């Protein structure tokens, strides 16, 4: 490319290589306010100890929040224990599986 050999200090006209991000905004539901009497779904993605962490959270919730109900998704829907959904379609499918339990809120635990 000839321009690379030109003298120092010239003015370059260049194209920005970054490109733009154009995604449809997605809105989320507000959380339920109080947890008393609510149905809480716990989601583990299969990473080591995530189930232990959520089991402890379940114990504390049942002990301290009046009338709370817990669904451990990895027990009720073992097929949803995936660290990587692999596609948006699979992610939507997982969300539909969780929605079928009609939880008031879903708590997921990730990380290594």
């Amino acid at each position, binding site marked *: 490319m000839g321009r690379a050999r030109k003298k120092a200090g010239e003015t370059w006209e260049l194209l920005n290589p970054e*490109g733009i991000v154009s995604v449809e*905004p997605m809105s989320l539901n507000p959380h339920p306010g109080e947890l008393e009497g609510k149905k809480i779904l716990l989601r583990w993605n299969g990473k080591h100890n995530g189930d232990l962490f959520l089991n402890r959270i379940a114990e504390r919730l049942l002990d301290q929040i009046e009338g709370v109900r817990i669904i451990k998704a990895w027990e009720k829907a073992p097929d949803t224990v995936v660290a990587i959904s*692999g596609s948006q379609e699979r992610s939507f499918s997982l969300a539909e599986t969780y929605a079928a339990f009609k939880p008031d809120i879903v708590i997921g635990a990730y*990380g290594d």
Partner: protein
Amino acid sequence: MTVVTSEFIGLAQDTMRSQGVSDYSFVVVPHPLGMIPGGEVRKKADDAFPDIVKMAGGWEPKSGILASEKAYPAERFSFDGTVHDLNRFFFDKGWSLGLPVEPPTPEAVARILTGTLLEPGGVIGQVPPRMGTLTVELAAVHAAMAGCKPEYMPVLIAALEAMLEPQANWRGAATTTGTTAALIIVNGPIVGKIGIAAAQGSAGADHHPNASIGYAINLIADIVGGAKSPSPDKSTLAAPSDFVAWIFGENEEALPRGWEPFHVQRGFAQSDSVVTVMATYPPVENIDHWSVTPEEHLRWWSRVVSPLTSVGGPCEVCQMDGNYIIGVGPEHAQLIAGSGWSQADFKKAFWERVRAPLSAWPRGAPHMEGVVQRLGPVSPETLVPITVKAEQLFTVIAGGAGKHSHYFAPFPRCLPVSRKINASGSRFL
């Protein structure tokens, strides 16, 4: 809401933004959670519990509108300075990998665009994890930066299209803690036509098409896709394949008689030009200089490769549903075929020999049921194969002289994706 460890909050936030969510409820706990005693996990849960209750109950999303701009034409701007200054500016902006780039001038980009009949404003796809919009023009910008010639564009575009198919799982491979890279295998007449190296040392340096196309792909992944280390690209160590993707042509001239080239195994005609892409872990090399029979050679394979090479078994059972690519060196291929073994014989023997006992995986692995679903009743002594069937293995004759073969294992849920090339690229076939 989501509980995430401190090392992964950046990736989690980036992921949400890339899906159009401007605000999300996270609770952050100190890293790590995995591979620590249960008592420590319990303490981390207890410490986080008040925040979890507060966030689960009372959080409300802040409204936020994500900006939307035009993807084409790409923004033009002026810069004063030397090529050295320009490279420094690009690196500081996050527009390079740390290696020098050619300046993407309008003239250079226009020259690259002569290599494709596609409209420059056409959208190839959204590149994860950032979900940057990749137009044909933007691909040409990166091809120019990488030093590609115009005639490389059909291969580059076909590879990018393949990588953006959902089954290629680019997002997962780009953000994992594992060491992954795009493996790109080119077959057919295009190999000779544009001079893609397909024999000695073909996946390494000194081959202009391989080097510049592989560089362009990684520039696009890093800059348009935003897969930057240390976040959202969480690779623990990473590798030089983050600079230049693995790319080589199959050594079709060294195919043993009766063996099918890779693209024919993938369902294409031998006369087709095809690009196949798969996100893989670093290859495992088989350095067998000694075997004189296929049986001995397979014994060697059974010791250098294991299903655990790519997690597999009950820890990542989806790996049993994937495809694995065995880059058979030409001399190993002649050893195998010279004894009368067909390609199918080799795949079957490989599949039967490369196994690990179920007891090799942890007892608490999350997908034991998945193993039973695929293999039937099991015991700790059951020898678990890499895949459910031998037919899930592919062979490609890779490289030149020498007694070396290479085993490419996929990142979980990353399947190989192939694209046939025409003069335009594969877009309008």
